[in-house]
């Protein structure tokens, strides 16, 4: 019993029991006894089932064990229990249970976010299959809309966690000279919530198949879930909103933990002006996640209340279609969504800024060009990103007189972003560039993000945006920033830190195939999409007019090239993890702290907390002063 109850297996079993108990029993008892007209019992049951699933899972994996033993018996866990919780046994089993070691959580996040990317990528391939030719031939339009919504949301969930999760957890504490995160159990909990959140979210397509709620089931709203449509759409909306809500909670926990860790856990001498840019980027992103995510969570909660209890936060009820009381406001949903939605895109890209700059430094063998300029760039983006959200509402009719203000703030954000470009170019200039796969991806970030950024300036202009809004030009623009920018940064980060995280090198030959396939596939596909957007092709359509056929054919073909290249990456990750060349502690000759500890990184990272006497960018200067690591950073005793 002791071996089975807390475990992932027990979590899955109790989660399933919790879901069935919640959705069936509670619905039948409460629903039958207190039938109130207008309440949507199917969806109420589902939501209660999801709560049951969450509780069952958390009990099963033992997330409540220590808080409850403390509450009931007033007993703190002893040292041995703490060490087991931290994964001291070192076996592979620690990756499959509730473990507090930040390195274990980092690996767990890495695997899960890659899985999410694969799911979202599958959605992208289905979309491109539908759009090869005009005519909704592959799927009915309702199914297509569901695929679009799923692709959008799951990709957003993946990319908001694929820096903060794996690298924020694994790398950042070592980079700042800490032994773990500030709140190790909160850290374990934030990952433990991501998984059931994902499970709940993945109910969506199946609910769409099972229960046809007048609209062909599924979710018709896109990831933006605008209130009026979200209130009306199929029952899949329930699991969509609930799943994202749970993952949002997980992401806030992770963000708060990271902010606290960076602010309080830095080693002696690791001043704010000695932090690697990776830490600055992830710190900025964590600030955005902690502040912004709540608005979206509120939006989703209001949608659920509207759907289940007909609360009319968004429901308008005009034209006699009185499902609810009416009097809601469609713009409220848009504002809540974009107040999260726009900081969120910078949340995705800020860590990439920091990571790409660090990689340029390491493989350019030159100090960072303008440290304070880079920090100003990142923090400038953090502040401004909360002031631009209404540029998504230039044509919504909401506050039309305020549009010039948002046009101004949106154009202003290109100033700090421009500083990042200056830092990157200045760092490259006259360096000694070592063209590893990580470096190639970091270099491609500059090209791709430049195109994404410049096309963003077009969209910031109100008159131009009125024409381009809601079209393929916008889709191509943000894919250039998120795929061309953040995803390339992610690939760079994986190739760069894989040796430290797994103890093995990735295959450079496969890496170069992956790199060129990705760049060619991505750039041709999305340049063609810009062309479709310029022609006037709308977004999110399953069928389109014949004049867009050429551009769409090109986009689809090269999207498949991109997918093939990413399969090479997946193979490379798996093969290298299993049988790659063993990595030495510092294969790249890098100077930040994580490369000065042994590989694999020992539990608690540092035998003694290091004393930092200089920054991570001491290239091209006489050796001598540098970070002091006492002893060799061996295994912690006990």
């Amino acid at each position: 019993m002791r071996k089975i109850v807390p475990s992932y297996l027990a979590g899955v079993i109790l989660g399933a029991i919790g879901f069935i108990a919640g959705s069936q029993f509670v619905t039948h008892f409460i629903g039958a006894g207190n039938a109130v007209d207008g309440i949507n019992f199917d969806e109420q049951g589902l939501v209660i089932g999801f709560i049951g699933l969450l509780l069952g899972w958390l009990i099963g994996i033992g997330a409540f064990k220590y808080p409850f033993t403390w509450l009931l018996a007033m007993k703190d866990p002893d040292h041995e229990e703490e060490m087991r919780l931290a994964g001291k046994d070192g076996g592979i089993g620690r990756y499959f249970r509730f473990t507090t070691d930040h390195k274990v959580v980092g690996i767990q996040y890495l695997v899960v976010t890659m899985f999410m990317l694969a799911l979202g990528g599958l959605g992208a391939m289905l979309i491109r299959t539908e759009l090869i030719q005009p005519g909704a031939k592959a799927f009915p339009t309702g199914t297509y809309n569901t695929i679009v919504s799923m692709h959008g949301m799951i990709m957003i969930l993946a990319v908001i966690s694929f820096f903060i999760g794996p690298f924020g957890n694994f790398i950042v504490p070592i980079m700042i000279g800490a032994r773990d995160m500030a709140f190790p159990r909160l850290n374990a909990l934030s990952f433990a919530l991501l998984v059931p959140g994902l499970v709940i979210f993945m109910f969506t397509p199946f609910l769409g198949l099972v229960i046809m709620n007048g609209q062909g089931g599924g979710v018709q709203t896109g990831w933006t879930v605008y209130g009026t449509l979200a209130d009306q759409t199929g029952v899949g909306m329930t699991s969509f909103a609930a799943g994202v809500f749970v993952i949002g909670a997980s992401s806030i926990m992770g963000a708060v933990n990271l902010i606290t860790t960076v602010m309080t856990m830095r080693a002696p001498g690791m001043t704010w002006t000695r932090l690697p840019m990776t830490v600055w980027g992830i710190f900025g992103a964590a600030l955005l996640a902690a502040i912004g995510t709540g608005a979206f969570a509120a939006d989703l909660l209001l949608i659920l209340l509207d759907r289940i209890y007909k609360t009319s936060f968004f429901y308008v009820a005009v034209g006699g279609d009185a499902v609810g009381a009416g009097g809601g406001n469609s713009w409220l949903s848009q504002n809540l969504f974009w107040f999260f939605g726009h900081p969120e895109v910078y949340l995705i890209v800020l860590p990439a800024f920091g990571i790409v700059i660090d990689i340029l430094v390491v493989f350019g063998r030159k100090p960072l060009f303008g440290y304070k300029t880079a920090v100003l760039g990142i923090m400038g983006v953090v502040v401004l990103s909360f002031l631009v959200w209404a540029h998504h509402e230039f044509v919504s009719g909401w506050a039309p007189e305020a549009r010039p203000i948002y046009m101004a703030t949106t154009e202003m954000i290109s100033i700090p972003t421009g500083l990042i470009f200056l830092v990157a170019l200045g760092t490259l200039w006259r360096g000694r560039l070592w063209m590893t796969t990580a470096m190639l991806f970091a270099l491609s970030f500059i090209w791709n993000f430049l195109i994404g950024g410049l096309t963003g300036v077009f969209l910031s202009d109100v008159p131009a945006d009125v024409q381009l809004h809601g079209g393929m030009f916008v889709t191509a623009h943000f894919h250039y920033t998120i795929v061309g920018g953040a995803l390339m940064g992610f690939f760079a980060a994986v190739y760069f830190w894989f040796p430290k995280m797994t103890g093995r090198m990735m295959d450079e030959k496969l890496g170069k195939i992956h790199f060129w396939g990705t760049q060619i596939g991505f750039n041709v596909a999305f340049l063609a999409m810009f062309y479709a957007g310029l022609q006037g092709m709308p977004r999110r359509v399953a069928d389109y007019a014949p004049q867009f056929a050429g551009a769409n054919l090109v986009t689809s073909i090269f999207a498949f090239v991109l997918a093939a290249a990413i399969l090479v990456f997946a193979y490379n990750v798996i093969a290298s993890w299993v049988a790659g060349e063993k990595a030495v502690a510092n294969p790249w000759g890098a100077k930040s702290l994580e490369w000065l500890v042994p590989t694999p990184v020992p539990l608690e990272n540092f035998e003694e907390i290091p004393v930092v006497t200089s920054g991570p960018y001491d290239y091209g200067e006489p050796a001598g002063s540098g970070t002091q690591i006492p002893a060799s950073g061996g295994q912690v005793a006990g």
Partner: protein
Amino acid sequence: MNEPRHIVRAALIWLVATVVGIAAVLLIGPQLVGWGSMPPVASNRASDVDSVLLLFTILSVPVFMGVVVFWGYSIFAFRSQGRPDRDGPGTRGHMPLQVTWLIASVILVSFLFGYGLVFYNQIQSASAADTLIVKVNGEQWLWNYSYPQYGDVSSTTLVLPVNRPVRFDITSTDVQHSFWIPAMAVKQDAVPGQTTHISATPTQIGTYEVRCAELCGVYHSYMETPMEIVTPDFFDSWIATLQSGQSAHVSGQMNTTAWMSQDADARSYSNREGWVA
């Protein structure tokens, strides 16, 4: 090779690339409408938007080339064969360059904002006395129009007289839609419970398309219908037919631009039977 020659070379490449790039934009840009690469220009707004797009493209050429040339030059001139055996120079920044960069980007952004503001005010300008008012109502998944100045007669096809300013008063019956006429650069959301407005002056007779630009449910893909810009005489007789209670047919007697003409009709939701969810 010493430092100054790298800078001079890269700067020269940038200059040539910028000149060539701008020349290409000036040469290709105005042709795009004719090639079908951009929607036709059938209103004052559309021509304003096209000139904004052209100017922004021209301005982005030196910025794009600036980054790409110095990036590409570094990749080709400073790459090392394999693992470098020594470090690059220990430069940690160049204050005058950083300040210049900052000032230049502030100036560029201020210019873009000012320029955008001028056009913004232009397209927001108050409507003229003879403005035609058209009420637009979006519902899943079609558009309804009515003409309050002509006894509120209604139609499912939009017909506008050429060269007369028009103001659309837009709302929706169910969910949020977006009323988009690509050829007129008109786009404004149709929000249930609210009325939104947008104005333009049609300038080119022809048949164009109206479509929905905001995901609005299962058949969003098919929420598109044809519209016509006609002579004032034709418009008057069309309205008169509507007022007399007959269903008035509009079909391209005018010089159609062939843009979407047949196709939009065939694909529009209202022409497909048995699709109601």
